[in-house]
C-alpha cells in the first residue's frame, strides 16, 4: 500500500491505495468525484482527462502514486461559482453533447487548449487537438463550434480585464 497526497480542486487530500491504483480510480472511488469518466481504458478515448499541474492528462494511464504531490483539477473544480464555466456554458448553448459521457473530458481538453493557445485558436487547431477525445454521438461539429465560441468569449473577457 502507498500513501498518496494530492491537491484536488484546491483542497489537499490524502489516502492509502495500492501502487497499481490508477489516478482515475483514486479520484472516483476514494474521493467520490465521479465526474471524471472511464471510457475505453486503453488511453484512447479521453473521457478521463483531468488537469495535473496545469496540463491536460489521461488519468486512466497514470498511477495515483505517480501523481502524488501534484495539483489536480477535475470537472467538478472547473468553476468555483455556482454558474457554469464559459466552456461548459458553450457546450450547452451549441449542443456540444448528446449522451454526455465524453463531455467532462471534452470540456477539460477544451479548457487546456484555450489556456495554451491564449485566444489564437482556429478550427483546424481545435480539430487537430481533439485527436485524443472520442465522441460517438455528435460527430464533433458542435463540439468544435462550442470550443471556438468559448474561446472567443474568454478572449473578450481577457481583453476587457486588461
Amino acid at each position, binding site marked *: 500500500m*502507498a500513501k498518496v497526497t494530492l491537491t484536488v480542486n484546491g483542497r489537499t487530500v490524502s489516502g492509502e491505495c*495500492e*501502487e*497499481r491504483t*490508477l489516478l482515475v480510480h483514486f479520484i472516483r472511488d476514494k474521493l467520490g468525484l465521479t465526474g471524471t469518466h472511464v471510457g475505453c*481504458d*486503453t*488511453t484512447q478515448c*479521453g473521457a478521463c*482527462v483531468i488537469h495535473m499541474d496545469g*496540463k*491536460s*492528462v*489521461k488519468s*486512466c*494511464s*497514470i*498511477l495515483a*502514486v*505517480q501523481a502524488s504531490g501534484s495539483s489536480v483539477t477535475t470537472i467538478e473544480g472547473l468553476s468555483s461559482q455556482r454558474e457554469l464555466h464559459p466552456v461548459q456554458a458553450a457546450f450547452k448553448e451549441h449542443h456540444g453533447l448528446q449522451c454526455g459521457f465524453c463531455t467532462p473530458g471534452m470540456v477539460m*481538453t477544451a479548457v*487546456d*487548449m484555450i489556456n495554451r493557445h491564449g485566444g489564437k485558436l482556429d478550427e483546424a487547431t481545435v480539430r487537430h*487537438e481533439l*485527436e*485524443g*477525445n472520442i465522441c460517438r454521438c455528435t460527430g464533433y461539429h458542435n463540439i468544435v463550434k462550442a470550443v471556438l465560441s468559448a474561446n472567443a468569449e474568454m478572449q473578450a473577457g481577457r481583453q476587457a480585464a486588461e
Partner: protein
Amino acid sequence: MYATGYHRASSVEEAVKLKGQHDEGRYLSGGMTLIATMKQRLAAPTDLVDLRHIADLHGISVDGRNVRIGAATPHAEVAGSSALRAICPAICDLAGKIGDPHVRHMGTIGGSIANNDPAADYPAAMLGLGATIITDRRWLSADDFFAGLFETALEEGEMVTGVTFEAPEKAGYAKFANPASRYALAGVFVARRADGVRVAVAGAGADGVFRHSGMEEALAASWSPDAVAGAAVDARDMLTDMHANGEYRANLVKVMAKRAVIAAG
C-alpha cells in the same frame, strides 16, 4: 493490472541503484506506453522506478547549433520550444504530431527511444539527425542504438539520460498516420548537412526504423522532391500487417520522403 511496487528516484544514480535491486523492475517515464501495456497485462514489472522527478533528466538546452534534450522531457515541451524551433523546426513539428495533447504532456523522448516501437516517430528523427544517445554509462550513435523491432543496444539496467545532436542545414519529417492510432504507417525524416544527407524511415520497415541509402544518394546528388522518384524501395523489406501490405508501404515511403523534402524546404 498485476500488482507492482513503486519507487520515485530523485537522481540518476538513485534510479540505477533502485533498478539494480529489482531484477524484474522497469524504469517508468511518461508511462504512455508502459502503463497502457501493464493495464493489458502484457507487461508485469514487479517494481517501477519513476524517472519523472529527476531534475537532471528534464529540459532542452541549445548552444549555438548544438542541442541536448533530457530523457524525461515530454513531447509537448519539444514541440513548443522556440529555441529548438529556431534551428531545427522539423523535430518540433514531429513531436507535435505524436499521439494527442494529453499523450504529449506525459510521454517523453527517452521513453520513446528506449521502447523503439517500429511505428514511433522519434527513432526516425534520431537516426535521421545522426544523434547521439546518452546513457548513464556511455554515448551511443543512433546507428548503433536502434537494433530492430522494440530492440535497442541498452543493456540490463542501463538508462537513457538524454540525446544530443547538431542541427542540420535542413531537415523535414512527413508521416502517413494510421487513421485510428495515429502512429506512423510510414514516416520519413530527411536531413541535409555539408557532409551528406540522411534519410530515416519509421513505421514501414520489417525490422524497425532504418536508413535508406538509395534515397540518401539521390538527395545528396540533387536536393529536390523529385530526386527520390528514381530510388527503389523494396516491398520485401517492408512490414505487412492488417493495416497495409509491403507494396503499399514501399510506395508510401517514397511519397513521405518527397513530402519531407518539401517540408525541409
